[in-house]
């Protein structure tokens, strides 16, 4: 079959992959039976979702690339540094950024790709195994096309704009290609690892559930990496420069590490006089080594795609079943246990349970500049509250996974609302504990955090109950697949807004009181929080 034909087929298949990545991972395979227009809208939304993700990644790569090489930036950031080291730092940071951008963008779709469902639908068609593999490989290319091209164009262009040489520019193309192949390899590798260890993992023990949550951290690696490179690029470069100045002789060790090896090599090709001969030789040798590694990785990626095409790559180990013992709980804890089990196998849900870990990392980095006080405490609490309140609607969307079945069960609205509220409170409490641990670590006064953080529990509960009541009523009335919240972003946002308003009332009241009568702040805060909690509890109690 001609390449053009395979390319055309891969377009349809990649649409299906993007659709599955959203509606299989997040929403189960059930779609609301509301006529073809509704489903068509969901398909369109899935395609838009992928395009938006691709375009945003491309914009990030372009913007990040040019910002890294801005001459003004160089003058301020590298005031005491040579032009050569500026090239090393900029090229290396950009290569790392592209790697993480690609993994961050592609992990979800790649997980859908490696789950081999696509091969199942292609195999019965009159296509050879090789053609099926080629189609799947082209799908992979389609998923990443724009960001990959952007990376290949941006680095050499930005490098040449700051006065790089033609040879250096050519090597920068090879460097970015190597980085992109590493990114693709990491994406497919993580997706395979994730699917076999998490999504496909069974087992009944609590230990298994815990390890699944730990494996889920894999999903956060690219998110952390991207966050870290974007926000701390300056810190990374400064640290790198400080390191090179402090350990001049140890510099040779750094030149063998990717992406610095390419940074040094390209810098040398820009006419660097700073580096010594052993460093240059080492950087060239290690860069060549990385090129070979990239070739190997590329082959691994294509082979993996081929294996997907020839009928699945993932074998999940099954434990022998010893008994069929069931441990029914009350409906409330039955729902909580079910949600935790689902979250332990689904990144989009688990990531919310891992929010405290993310918050700890961010707070730990930023906390050194905090000074204890009412404004800082309420500010930090506002941040934690806003993140926590994303949890209830997302946890509620789990019900949409099997809504065509769940709704046949004798389930009360208020039980569902209370179960999800308890989960949200659980996450909030862990976040507050994390905040206190960090405050202790940085030897800050944490009295305010304890007092306001604890009282804010009522506010979080009220806001969660409000969000969930709105959703529960919608769920019961319309029966739409709530898992498709991503396809109905407006619904998602419209539910968050009232939640934020409710959670914000005690905070705003406290701020206002601080301006009028400072000594009444706590009383006002607690009164507002308890009042809204009482109202919301009454409303939830009335939900059958």
């Amino acid at each position, binding site marked *: 079959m001609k390449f053009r034909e395979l390319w055309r087929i891969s377009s349809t298949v990649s649409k299906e992959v993007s659709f599955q990545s959203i509606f299989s991972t997040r929403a189960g395979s059930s779609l609301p039976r509301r006529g073809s227009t509704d489903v068509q809208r969901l398909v369109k939304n899935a395609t838009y979702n992928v395009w938006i993700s691709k375009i945003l990644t491309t914009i990030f790569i372009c913007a990040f690339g040019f910002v890294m090489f801005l001459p003004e930036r160089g003058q301020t950031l590298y005031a005491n540094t040579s032009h050569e080291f500026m090239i090393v730092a900029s090229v290396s940071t950009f290569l790392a950024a592209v790697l993480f951008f690609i993994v961050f963008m592609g992990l979800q779709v790649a997980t859908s790709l490696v789950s081999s469902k696509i091969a199942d639908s292609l195999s019965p068609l009159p296509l050879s195994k090789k053609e099926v593999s080629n189609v799947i490989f082209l799908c992979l290319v389609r998923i990443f096309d724009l960001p990959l091209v952007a990376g290949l164009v941006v680095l050499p262009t930005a490098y040449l704009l700051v006065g790089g040489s033609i040879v250096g520019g050519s090597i920068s193309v090879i460097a970015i290609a190597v980085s992109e192949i590493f990114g693709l390899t990491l994406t497919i590798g993580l997706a395979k690892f994730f699917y076999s260890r998490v999504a496909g993992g069974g087992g009944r023990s609590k230990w298994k559930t815990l390890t699944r949550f730990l494996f889920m951290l894999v999903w956060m690696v690219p998110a952390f990496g991207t966050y870290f490179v974007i926000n701390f690029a300056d810190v990374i470069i400064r640290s790198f420069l400080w390191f090179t100045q402090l350990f001049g002789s140890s510099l040779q060790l750094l030149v063998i590490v990717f992406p610095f090896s390419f940074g040094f090599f390209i810098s040398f090709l820009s006419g660097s006089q700073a580096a010594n001969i052993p460093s240059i030789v080492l950087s060239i040798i290690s860069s060549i080594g990385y090129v070979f590694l990239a070739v190997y990785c590329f082959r691994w990626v294509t082979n993996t795609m081929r294996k997907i095409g020839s009928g699945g790559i993932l074998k999940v180990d099954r434990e022998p079943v010893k008994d*069929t013992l*069931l441990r*029914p*709980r009350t409906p409330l804890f039955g729902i909580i246990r*079910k949600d935790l089990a*689902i979250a332990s196998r689904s990144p989009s849900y688990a990531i919310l349970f891992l929010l405290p870990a993310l918050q700890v990392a961010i707070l730990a980095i930023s906390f050194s500049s905090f000074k204890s006080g009412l404004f800082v405490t309420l500010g930090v609490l506002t941040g934690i509250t806003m993140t926590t309140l994303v949890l209830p609607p997302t946890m509620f969307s789990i019900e949409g996974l099997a809504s065509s079945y769940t709704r*046949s069960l004798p389930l009360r609205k208020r039980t569902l609302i209370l179960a999800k509220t308890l989960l949200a409170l659980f996450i909030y409490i862990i976040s507050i504990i994390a905040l206190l641990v960090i405050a202790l670590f940085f030897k800050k006064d944490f009295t305010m955090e304890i007092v306001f953080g604890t009282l804010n529990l009522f506010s979080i509960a009220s806001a969660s109950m409000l969000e969930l009541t709105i959703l529960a009523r919608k769920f019961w009335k319309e*029966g739409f697949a709530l898992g498709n919240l991503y396809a109905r972003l407006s619904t998602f946002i419209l539910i968050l807004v009232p939640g934020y308003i409710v959670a914000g009332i005690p905070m705003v009241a406290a701020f206002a009181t601080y301006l009028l009568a400072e000594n009444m702040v706590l009383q006002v805060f607690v009164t507002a929080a308890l009042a809204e909690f009482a109202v919301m509890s009454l409303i939830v109690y009335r939900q059958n």
Partner: protein
Amino acid sequence: MQELAVRVDGLVVSYGNFVAVDNLSFNVKNNEIYGLLGPNGAGKTTTLKVLVGVLEPRAGQVVVYDTPISNEVAAKSQIGYVPEEVVLFDSLTPREFLEFTASLRRLDTNVANSRVVKLSTAFDLTKYFDTPIAALSMGNKQKVAIVAALLHEPRLLVLDEPLIGLDARSSKILKELIVFHAKKGGAVIFSTHIMEVAEKLCTRVGIINKGKLVGEGTVDELRKLVKGAEGSLEDIFLKVTEQEAGMQELIKALEEE
């Protein structure tokens, strides 16, 4: 007089402008196996979904053992449901899924376990108990749904194409269970496209076409009612649903190719 298990009265269900079920009424008594038949898209699944509270009707009433379906918890507690498309929580294992349904139905641990041992052995599901549902075959997913539907010993069984995907052994066991359930005093409503099964199993059948009930009764009653349909339920069905006309010509045309 037999107790009325289900009363469906003037049911109307629509998706936008499309009316899927149009003024449908029927009753099912205890000890009865009521077969709901109809061509694809006739409105069978929609009707059953309203019956179990998954869909809300535009008009009409559904009463399950004197409890309107609007009284959700009370009505749904008496129903065991196997959906046509078995979309369960795919990332859960059968054990986790059954624990979830048993929790919602407030089942006693001992009762749930004595039932689950029997059912999972009967349907040969034990070995898949800790495998995520997503990794199970269609037939095994169907078995999970069947076990979940039978776990709480419901008075009313609502089964939407329950035999699809089942192996011969499980299919036979389920059919026996359906008969036993009715004999024990329960009621069963099930939809199927397999006319032979409906003919053998059902006490009465209701035939739906384009959302309307176009025939109802025992197979013998329908035979008398429909002129020229002397043979099987399949013949009656094709006549009643007006699908017979031109069918022979179409088959001939296909054979000539």
